[in-house]
């Protein structure tokens, strides 16, 4: 009996709604009405507002500025990490560039294995 109660209420609602139907109205309109009656509160709370669905437009000039800022921030982070690190010599320095160290006289530009 308890299980049949919601069905009974639904049928009663449908029948009463159908009784109020105006000419040419879809006879199944109550199905849609029930569906949207449940959703109405969550949808109508956005009334009179702007829903932001923005995108990021590519701008050559702004992209260049962003790249520069990122580079500056990276350099700053490296310097900060280096300053905070306990100095145990270049061997332990994760940012030490051994390949390029020494410039034109460095490892990269040696002529032979022995130099």
């Amino acid at each position, binding site marked *: 009996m308890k299980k049949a109660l919601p069905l009974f209420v639904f049928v009663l609602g449908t029948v009463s709604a159908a009784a109020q139907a105006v000419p040419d109205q879809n006879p199944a309109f109550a199905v849609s009405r029930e569906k949207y009656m449940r959703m109405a509160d969550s949808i*109508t*709370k*956005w*009334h*009179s*507002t*702007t*829903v*932001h*669905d*923005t*995108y*990021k*437009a*590519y*701008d*050559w*000039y*702004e992209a260049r500025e962003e790249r520069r800022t990122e580079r500056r921030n990276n350099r700053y982070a490296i310097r900060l990490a280096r300053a905070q690190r306990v100095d145990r010599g270049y061997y332990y320095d994760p940012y030490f560039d051994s390949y390029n160290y020494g410039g034109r006289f460095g490892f990269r530009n040696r002529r032979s294995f022995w130099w």
Partner: protein
Amino acid sequence: MKKALLYASFLALPAFFACSRQVSRISPNEQVDISGRWNNTDSRLVSEEMIQTVLNSNWLANHVQAKGSKPTVIVGFVANKSHEHIDAETFVKDVEQSFVKTERVRLVQGGKKREELRAERADQQTNSSASTMKKFGLENGADYILQGSINSIVDAHKKKKEVYYQVNLELTNLETNEVVWIGDKKIAKLVKN
């Protein structure tokens, strides 16, 4: 003496820089473009166009002729699908104000303000005197809903940028879903950095 003057001038430096900012009041109708982004001039151009077209379109006369009364409008949401943060309320409020001022269209409250109204009405049910208590179920049902969208196209290379905005507002019949009016405003800007 010279040293004292030098110290005094150093002390006066912060005061000098503090005074370097100047602020002046200007007319909201004055066109001021600083960054090239969406600004109050764009909002004003949109509201002027929308007010002009919404009140002079056929939907209004058609409704009065068919129903014999002024149409009731509720404001739905405006979707900002552009690349900038644009709040549509600045121009939608102008359109709403024109409805109220001209008294040709009835406007009903929606969204959070309506929630607040209903909450106040609920509060009255137990706190107000019986003669002043407002009843539930007597709100004006809207005939039309005003919805809108903001779109943009950006074309930029090196220091030049062209930005195109298209703002659309549309009125739809709540019973039939028929769109009775669409207003649009197109704004194109050329920005050189």
